[in-house]
């Protein structure tokens, strides 16, 4: 197909609404837009006037899939603003539940939403007859992740138990041992899927770009760290505005983002590319088996990187449980004192908080959710009331990169039928696992 328009209205099997619009002339891309028609929900405006304690429960509702990650970023931001240092036990449990979300979200995406493309069907439902055994293994892994979130958070989505400076319910040692057992039993299911992915035909497409992810010296960073780039250097989280720039493009109302280059990517592939050395042995084995090496510039390999991270989270989950059992869990005092009138505690140097009046303080939280770096920033007053907020969502950071990838992909598939071009474009978007419901600061594209 050399001339004509492709209009994919609502890419299916993604979380939220996105459209792809392409105008081809003589085999060249005349215009291409990755359009986001999702309704914005204005969470940053909504949390104003609420108590600091409400923030994690409200912002969890930004996203059904990343509700644990939003809760954690929110807790971190609030705790930073209030000068609260959560205990080692609290942090370890948060790391453990964040792994549950990563496994839950990655398995949902890789097995239920992306795998149908690679296996030539239109949804996961036909796999029940064509690929019954692998599907049952996928379901077991997904269910394990849900049980894992249920145990720690109280339920799968919108966790109840995580609050500022602690947990309202701790798992018992027996529950942790049972979870450890279930995780260990799930590893062969994961290994079987690595065997399947090894044989799949992943599109061969590369476009060099920058990858951003949190980084730590002592572990493969999910919970916290500094913002690292494959182009070199790290940025402390409170200074995130110095690294990540939002800007408006001429043809669009959209806020796009960039860092060192024209666009960047966050998510599983970005973490893998930055932090490969810190992966667990099982995860490194999975990467080798499936031919994933850093730095990988093929966005379709994000699916593979997600499977590698599932391996890491299973293995690291067992390690964290062992550490918690060795420490022995105890009920802790969660009460906090809001110390008044000292001004911002962690004000980012370029944030509007430089003009804060006395008694207000800001804090920034950043964590790696399944789709990448997530930032929550809050300003809180003396009474503990939120007066301002800013959230930066991973899918928003990826939109600019998705659009540039789509533009680069079209010429490589332009000789195919319209149907095949459409499938290739949709598969590329799905590879990013976009989570469009996270609808703050949406990168809306308007057409002329």
């Amino acid at each position: 197909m050399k001339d004509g328009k492709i209009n994919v209205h609502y890419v299916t099997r993604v979380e939220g609404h996105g459209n792809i619009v392409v105008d081809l002339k003589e085999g060249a891309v005349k215009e291409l837009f990755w359009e986001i028609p999702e309704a914005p929900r204005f969470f940053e405006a909504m949390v104003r006037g609420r108590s600091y304690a409400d923030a994690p429960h409200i912002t969890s509702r930004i996203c059904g899939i990343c509700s644990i990650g939003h809760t954690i970023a929110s807790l971190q931001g609030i705790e930073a603003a209030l000068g609260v240092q959560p205990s080692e036990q609290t942090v370890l449990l948060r790391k453990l539940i964040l792994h549950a979300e990563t496994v839950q979200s990655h398995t949902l995406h890789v097995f239920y939403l992306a795998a149908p493309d690679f296996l030539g069907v239109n949804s996961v439902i036909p796999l029940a007859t064509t690929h019954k055994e692998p599907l049952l293994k996928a379901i077991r892994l997904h269910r394990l992740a849900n049980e894992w979130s249920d145990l720690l958070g109280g339920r799968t989505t919108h966790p109840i138990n995580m609050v500022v400076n602690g947990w309202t319910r701790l798992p018992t040692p027996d529950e942790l041992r049972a979870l450890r057992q279930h995780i260990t039993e799930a590893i062969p299911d994961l290994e079987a899927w690595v065997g399947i992915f090894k044989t799949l035909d992943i599109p061969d497409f590369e476009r060099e770009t920058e990858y951003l992810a949190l980084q730590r010296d002592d572990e493969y960073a999910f919970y916290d760290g500094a913002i690292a780039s494959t182009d070199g250097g790290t940025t402390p989280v409170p200074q995130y505005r110095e690294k990540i720039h939002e800007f408006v493009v001429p043809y669009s109302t959209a806020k796009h983002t960039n860092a060192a280059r024209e666009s960047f990517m966050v998510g599983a592939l970005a973490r893998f590319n930055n932090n490969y050395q810190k992966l667990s042995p099982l995860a490194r084995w999975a990467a080798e088996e499936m031919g994933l090496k850093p730095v990988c510039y093929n966005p379709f390999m994000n699916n593979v990187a997600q499977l590698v991270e599932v391996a890491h989270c299973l293995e690291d989950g067992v390690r964290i449980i062992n550490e918690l059992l060795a420490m022995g869990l105890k009920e802790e005092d969660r009460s906090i004192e809001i110390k008044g009138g000292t001004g911002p505690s962690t004000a980012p140097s370029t944030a509007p908080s430089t003009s804060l009046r006395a008694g207000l303080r800001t804090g920034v939280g950043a964590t790696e959710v399944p789709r990448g770096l997530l930032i929550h920033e809050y300003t809180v007053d003396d009474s503990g009331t939120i007066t301002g907020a800013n959230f930066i969502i991973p899918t928003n950071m990826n939109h600019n990169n998705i659009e540039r990838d789509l533009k680069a992909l079209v010429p490589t598939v332009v000789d195919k039928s319209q149907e095949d071009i459409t499938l290739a474009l949709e598969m590329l978007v799905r590879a990013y696992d976009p989570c469009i419901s996270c609808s703050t600061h949406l990168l809306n594209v308007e057409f002329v």
Partner: protein
Amino acid sequence: MMKPRIAIFDFGCCEGCQLQIVNLEEEILDLVGLVDVVSWREATTGHSDDYDIAIVEGSITREAEMERLKGIRQNAKILVALGACAHIGGVNCLKNFFEMDEVLKYVYGQDAKHFDTIPARPLSAVVPVDYAVPGCPIDRKEFVEVVKALLLGKKPPIPNYPVCVECRAKGNVCVFDKGMTCLGPVTRAGCGAICPTYGNKCEGCRGLVDDPNLDSHKEVLQEHGLTVEQILNSFRMFDGYMEVAK
């Protein structure tokens, strides 16, 4: 007999309630055997406007969505509101307590003029709704019960008694006795009092029971030291639309 045709749609929300349907795992395959899912963008490719039951998640937050919802209502014999956003407005209505222009400017700054938004509202503010699956998120088991009832042509079994009933049955220490405040006395049960059971308070995500004694509950909250502003705030988390609609 032709299988009932089901379509699933979403408006402004986190899509966490649809996720609970996915989380049914094997059970979803049993349900899928009893119905024809003709449209479900989040999980499958393909779409049809020919359906009997529409399951709709999310709140209405833009003018254009009202027309889309009216279209869905016309096509469907039965319309089910899925989750708090569709049922009572949910957290989306927190923005209704600000001016829309101010909210737009706060989030989008000088680009605000390119976006449109209206005060968030539940589906029932726009079209007649036949049934609701309450909660934020919905309870997976309750969803299955609702679908089963619809397939049998029965009224779905949603409780009309307060969360306190379930909370007491669980043997929980009353949240008020722990020095906290709670919306359990006026909130519709069916969640198994999950939040108080895990050491939190009821935040009212399932909406009010049919005849809530709101004034006496407000008195109870006041007796426990909450100011009028704090009481309104606690209801606003999920139930803010109720206050604005009056």
